[in-house]
């Protein structure tokens, strides 16, 4: 997993509450492997109409934001289905950071597993950043994970993120290697489960 330190990039505002993972990646692409190009179908039904024409009013189709690496969203971004492929689609499209007032729990867990930063700001701050971007679409944001800051149009915002997730992103940590280092404790715990709650292990 890639480490995340700072990012200076164009940012695309998407002012939709409860933007769920079905919107980020429609269900029909869940069969796809990552190699098939999930980034191409990110937000497919919001970006394109039924004939496959771009919807001019969807922000990611704005020339200034086509290659944005940052999204700025509204309340409850990434709620809904647990599909991690929604994070693959964002990442493979080039998105490295999403800024929003709140995130779906499973989504932000999936994000950290893949090096995607989910930065939490207040409702007002998200609105202010989106307004600045709408005024000046070419604006670059500077996101600094160590300092938990976002610089936008000469204004600085502090974002919050779970400290453990922050450490993981900063270090690019892989869970499995970490867990393996506790192998003995896991084995001992398993034995205690067998002993105290034998019904956990059903007859085959």
């Amino acid at each position: 997993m890639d480490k995340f330190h700072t990012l200076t990039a164009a940012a695309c505002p998407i002012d939709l509450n409860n933007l769920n993972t079905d919107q980020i990646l429609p269900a029909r692409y869940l069969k796809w492997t990552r190699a098939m190009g999930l980034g191409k179908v990110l937000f497919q039904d919001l970006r394109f109409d039924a004939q496959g024409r771009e919807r001019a009013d969807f922000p990611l189709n704005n020339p200034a934001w086509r290659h944005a690496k940052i999204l700025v969203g509204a309340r409850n971004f990434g709620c809904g289905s647990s599909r991690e492929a929604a994070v693959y689609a964002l990442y493979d499209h080039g998105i490295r950071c999403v800024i929003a007032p709140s995130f779906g729990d499973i989504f932000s867990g999936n994000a950290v597993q893949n090096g995607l930063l989910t930065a939490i700001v207040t409702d007002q701050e998200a609105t202010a950043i989106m307004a600045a971007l709408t005024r000046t679409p070419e604006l670059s944001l500077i996101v600094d994970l160590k300092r938990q800051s976002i610089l936008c149009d000469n204004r600085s915002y502090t974002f919050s993120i779970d400290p453990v997730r922050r450490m993981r992103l900063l270090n690019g940590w892989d869970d499995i290697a970490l867990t393996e280092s506790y192998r003995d404790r896991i084995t001992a715990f398993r034995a205690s489960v067998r002993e105290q709650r034998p019904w956990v292990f059903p007859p085959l």
Partner: protein
Amino acid sequence: MSQPRTIIDKLWSAHEILRRDDGESLLWVDRHYVHEGSFHAFAKLAARGAKVAEPQLTFAVTDHYMPTRRPRGEIDNPELARMVRQLEENTAANGVKLFGPDDPRQGIVHVVGPEQGLTLPGLLIVCGDSHTSTHGALGAYAFGIGASEVAHVLMTQTIWQKKPKTMRVTIDGVTAPGVSAKDIVLAIIAHIGADGATGCALEFAGAAIRALSIEGRLTLCNMSIEAGARCGIVAPDAATFSYLEGRPYAPKGAELDRAMESWSKLNTDSDAPFERDVTLEAKNIAPIVTWGTSPEDALPIDASVPDPARESNAARAAHWRDALAYMGLTAGKRLSEIAIDRVFIGSCTNARIEDLRAAAAVLAGRSSKVPGLVSAGSSLVKQQAEQEGLDRVFREAGLQWGESGCSMCVGLNGDLVASGERCASTTNRNFRGRQGPGARTHLMSPAMVAAAAVTGYLTDVRDLLVDQKV
């Protein structure tokens, strides 16, 4: 004396192998359910040359990609067949038990687990599916995870988690006739919002919850994710124990006695503090339908579509405008005047036997004004319904009686609601395009879907129950 603890605290500490200084805990996983969507995770496993660590604690079903509108047998759609085959191969290679396409126990993962007695009180259960919260109905700590976490659980039978905040929703009193678990949970979501429980483990308590059957509690916990909750839990009680008795994988004899003794301690001590506590009165809950594109867009059936112009919160008003445009509705329209094109009775929310009985009670001797599909939550539920003659009621009403699977809940198997069509549905998500691109979904209880079928409009089922002999 020790501190009073919530059921959430008790379940958490029973599974915590260790806690790191940074607050992250390594938890032991008692049950891991997998479905066709696990292929990303199995690929990660294969890439590391690893095998499933605890095949005995891992159970697989085919549900999301199962055809449900044609009889069982060879799957003719090559893409669906490939998804099913992948799971067959991955489970076989790892010695994992699969309830596959031809198994009489096949069904939706969140229906099969409880039905087989695999879901038990006090277990920590995970699955790469957000509606894993369902299993909390039996007093389990159950939550959905992503593909990387699925791979981690497959390899280690553990998962890293930070202890969530605790929240309790209490429903006091008695619900009115015709009001079901689905109405209760939609009322809760409408009240606290689609992110009202984000970051929380959510206990449901109160007399109205205790009065729910296990089926009703499964519906309730199923939708706790739609309020953003990590998991939903109902403390086990006598109803739980009698539901479990005799289920194939549940403990038996002396082991059952021992288990029950341990399960009976799974409750919230009086005075145990929750970080958030919300109380609703059961008597104020009416049959509810959704009108928009988030489960929080839910209102009693006698209400009207809300007016964004009268909403002072700008973001909410924008969401409402957007939802109305997508749903093809205008502000102020009475919900009971909304005509539907189709009905769907199915999904892990509302396709257990009790749900089918509730819908059949309304449809008996009547016909549906619109086409629709009924897909039982499991092949065993289907069989039971046929023994009770419910399939006849649905067929005679003009609805299709399908096979079991996720079906039109998400349409991965090709059973879609057409663009622009309006569907009264017993499912859990009314998201844009959830049942197919452009599809318009109204969520409600099975009885309410049946009522909508009978009149062709969203309808208060209570008006239809008056003269119905059940």
